[in-house]
């Protein structure tokens, strides 16, 4: 049976390189973080696993207008 080929609109190599770079950046960020230091046995660091600031006025942590007067 005759088969025809179509070009895929992407390069496999480029995708793997991009994802590799993103993973490397995540790893680099993680390796210098307090959470990694804590996991490595350093006891006196404060990690930010539960980061929500319940006293903040907005989801981004911004204060309320009334507290800025």
């Amino acid at each position, binding site marked *: *049976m*005759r*088969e*025809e*080929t*179509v*070009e*895929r*609109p*992407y*390069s*496999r190599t480029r*995708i*793997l390189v991009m*994802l590799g770079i993103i*993973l490397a950046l*995540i*790893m680099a*960020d*993680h390796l210098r*973080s*307090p*959470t*990694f230091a804590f*996991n490595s046995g350093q006891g006196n660091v404060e*990690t*930010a*696993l*539960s*980061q*929500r*600031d*319940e*006293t*903040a*006025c*907005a*989801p*981004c*942590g*911004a*204060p*309320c*207008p*009334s507290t*800025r007067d």
Partner: protein
Amino acid sequence: MADSAVLQPGLQQPRWQVDRFIVSTALVGLALLGGLIWLETAPFMVALFVVGTVLGMALYHGAFGFTAGWRNLVVKKRGAGMRAQLLLFGVTSLIMVPMLHSGQAGLVGAVAPVGSSLVVGSFLFGIGMQLGGGCGSGTLFTVGAGNIRMVVTLVFFIAGAVLGSIHLPWWLDQPGFDPVPLVSSFGISGAILVQFVGLGLIAWWVNRIERKAHGSVERDELLWKSQGHGVFRTLISGRWPFTWAILILAAGNALTLAIGGAPWSITFAFNVWGAKALEVVGVNMSQFEFWTWDYPAMALKDSVLTNIPSVMNFGLLLGAMLAAGLANRFNEASRNRPEGRQFLAAVVGGLLLGYGARLGFGCNIGALFSGIASASLHAWVWFASAFVGSLIGIRLRPWFRLPN
């Protein structure tokens, strides 16, 4: 060089094929990152990563675009996309408003101040949506599905978000007032009812526009069954009827609240990524007031793997990639390479999206969807201002050679 795929000839429509490379790559990425999150953080973060992945698949398979839904109403006078969003907001507020006020400790709603910052930010965001080609979730899931123009939008989205974070304290000094949770004035049932009335009025207005232009209203948003394939194939390869996407997105946001303690948000992660990148090149972000506030300062200092929006965004990207691979449509939107002005639109749109999202306390997900699900007045102001901005963005699109 581009790789090749084999298609069977002689068929009217190409036989459904899974893009095995994309699917395998997405699954390996999910396993690697999920494993790392499991090892280094806590099980609840893995759960949020999975929720993000499912949300990414739902956004892609449901073709759930806020931007296109708004544009279809304005340009084509078709309201199915808009009504799907209104249904989503209604269903989710029915679940989440009682959850937030159930008395369970540690649950925080998406409520934010109402004022100059919110109005200006959401207005700019609305323009950016139409020029950039997507909102917060739309940008992420299309990047995950391989759209090259949207990668440009995302990069400038991040840049705009960081600039917005630097300017936000000034904007907060302009006229405005503290958050207005509707539950405080109307109680839980009353707040839900007031919101339903608001959503119903918008739906009535949308229907009126559609009926006036076409004589009748299409009810695509109420479809339960796919028009082309069986349930299994539709579930795996899309396209999902709107109803499926609505239910998954509503459940996903409620799960995010239950697991993470706050509703779904996206754009704060862009702030963190951009600020971290600037710190790497030597910029001291703590000189800017925003980055001295507790939550941003903590997020900046610690790993992105401990930041809920970041972890969910990673899941969303890989989920959309997986879905695009299963549909055999990865990178399909980039078959026709965009021209210069379209890239310029991505740059301008991305900057407006990022700057607007920071001033407006989030995007369509964090401020609008989660805001209404939290019964916060700011979400309604955001909706109105962003829609007006979107009207201007739609008018600007032809100049950037973007189809309307």
